[in-house]
């Protein structure tokens, strides 16, 4: 049985032999016919039968066709005709024919096998290519999934970071608030208790004026102590300006915008800047002034978080207010400021935000005042608000 990998349809040995027999018989018939018509004929049909048998029936079918052809030719066409005897003259022709048939049959079956191997190789290659393609597709899918996962992780990371920053700020503020409230509560407790004690001593019979006087004395002292604490806290926020360097406001705005871009994009806010070209330098604390600008921008972005019916646009503009003041305005298209709140927004602990401490604008205000400037806010004629500050220009560098 031919178990060559190239034999696609494993035909039975009988079928293969039958094929050889049929083809050789057909060749014989045709040759005899031609001989009757043209009185002579070549062995072309036998070669064709051998080639076809070897090609379609395989090696063994080819050999069978060769043998049958040799026998048929010898019997029908070699002298003496219609006998298996062989004359001296016919022998070389018969050998020539047999050898040719063998070569043709061998060549045909060799070609057939080579082609089958080639096809097999091609199929194998195709299979491999398909497998590799499938693998690549799989890898690609995994890669895409990983990229999506990575993006999600990154977003979660940024969110966590923002949350951490918020919590840190809140807990720092909370600790500060607790410390401040303790510092103020102590003298207040002494004041209230002394006042009550004073009343008691005055209403005792007879009134004890000495004790009452001591209590009032202590009240005055503790009132002063409380005001010292308050003054100290104010100083902590405002006077801490150790650095006074020459600052270009446009540089600050550019630096800050870079920092804020991410936050703006996340909140679908378009950030625009209109920076004046003729600005004077100012003297101040870079970090504190950056803080103010960041604060104003973040406030603007937050004010627009609910806006859905119009573009969320944040415009930062710098100009010379007059010859001696640099003006920075942050304009948003957010919820705006109620007229009654215009003054109060700079008070400490005033906030309209659910999560706000109400310290941002208050601290910004203190910083700008400590720089000898002004900070104010106003509602826009259409939507949102504009918060702006003006700082005194450095005279020497006025261009």
């Amino acid at each position, binding site marked *: 049985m031919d178990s060559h990998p190239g034999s696609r349809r494993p035909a039975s040995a009988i079928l293969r032999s039958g094929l050889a027999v049929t083809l050789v018989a057909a060749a014989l018939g045709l040759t005899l016919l031609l001989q009757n018509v043209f009185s002579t004929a070549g062995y072309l049909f036998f070669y064709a039968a051998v080639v076809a048998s070897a090609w379609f029936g395989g090696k063994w079918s080819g050999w069978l066709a060769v043998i049958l052809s040799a026998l048929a030719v010898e019997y029908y066409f070699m002298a003496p005709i219609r006998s298996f005897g062989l004359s001296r003259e016919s022998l070389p022709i018969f050998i020539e024919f047999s050898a040719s048939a063998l070569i043709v049959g061998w060549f045909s079956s060799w070609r057939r096998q080579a082609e089958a191997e080639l096809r097999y190789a091609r199929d194998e290659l195709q299979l491999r290519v398909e497998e590799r393609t499938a693998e690549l597709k799989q890898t690609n899918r995994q890669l895409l999934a990983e990229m999506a996962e990575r993006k999600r992780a990154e977003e979660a990371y940024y969110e966590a970071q923002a949350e951490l920053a918020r919590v840190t700020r809140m807990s720092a503020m909370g600790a500060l608030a607790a410390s401040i409230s303790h510092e103020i509560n102590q003298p207040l407790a*002494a004041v209230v208790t002394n006042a*009550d*004690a004073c009343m008691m001593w005055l209403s*005792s019979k007879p009134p004890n004026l000495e004790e009452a006087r001591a209590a009032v004395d202590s009240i005055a002292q*503790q009132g002063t*102590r409380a005001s010292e604490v308050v003054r100290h806290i104010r100083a902590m926020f405002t006077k801490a300006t150790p650095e006074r360097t020459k600052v270009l406001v446009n540089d600050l705005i550019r630096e800050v915008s870079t920092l804020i871009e991410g936050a703006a994009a996340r909140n679908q806010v378009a950030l625009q800047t209109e920076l004046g070209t003729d600005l004077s330098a100012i003297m101040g604390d870079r970090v504190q002034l950056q803080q103010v600008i960041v604060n104003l921008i973040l406030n603007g972005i937050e004010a627009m978080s609910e806006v859905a019916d119009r573009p969320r646009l944040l415009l930062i503009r710098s100009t010379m207010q007059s010859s001696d003041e640099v003006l920075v305005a942050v304009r948003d298209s957010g919820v705006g400021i109620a007229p009654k709140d215009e003054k109060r927004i700079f008070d400490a602990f005033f906030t309209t935000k659910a999560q706000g401490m109400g310290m941002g604008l208050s601290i910004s205000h203190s910083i700008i005042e400590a720089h000898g400037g002004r900070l104010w806010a106003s509602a826009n004629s259409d939507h949102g608000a504009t918060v702006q500050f003006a700082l005194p220009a450095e005279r020497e560098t006025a261009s």
Partner: protein
Amino acid sequence: MKDSDPIVFVVDDDEPVREAVKRLIASVGLRVEAFGSTREFLDAKRPEAPACLVLDVRLPGASGLELQSDLAAANVQIPIIFITGHADVPMTVRAMKAGAVEFLTKPFRGQELLDAIQNAIAKDRVAWNDRTQMADLRARYHSLTPREKEVLVLVASGLLNKQIGAELGTSELTVKTHRARVMQKMGADSLADLVRMAERINPSGTITK
């Protein structure tokens, strides 16, 4: 003022607050002693009288809450009124669970503190009476001779003079004399009174022959 007059202790590290509280308490005629730290309070000799403690939570060294548990551990029973500048819920819960009578947040009104003090002292007066009676009873018990103590135990356990005599190997008459002496020394008006006293001194039955 008598030694057994109620007394208020104040522990607060903030001197002006401490002085103000002291002044307020003194205005209603109560004895008051103030300390700047838990250490000073623990080191001071405290008079035996109905008392209460006005205690700041936030103190240098051991905090007010620590002093509360230290006192409980040392079996010093004194009602505590906490005052604090910044109370949070867990702190308050902890203090009240540990038996604080009141928790006041500064600044508090004088009357609030005075009311709390009056309540605490009234509460401690009951406990104090108990404590002094008990001490008195113990002192009387310790004035008995060993034989008298034996007689007391047997009387309290319900035996008759005759049985006690048999138990101790003495005559009934001798027992009668001892018994009269015990009644007198303990200040008991009746046999029932004496039995009750014996039970109070010895609720767990440690006085045995």
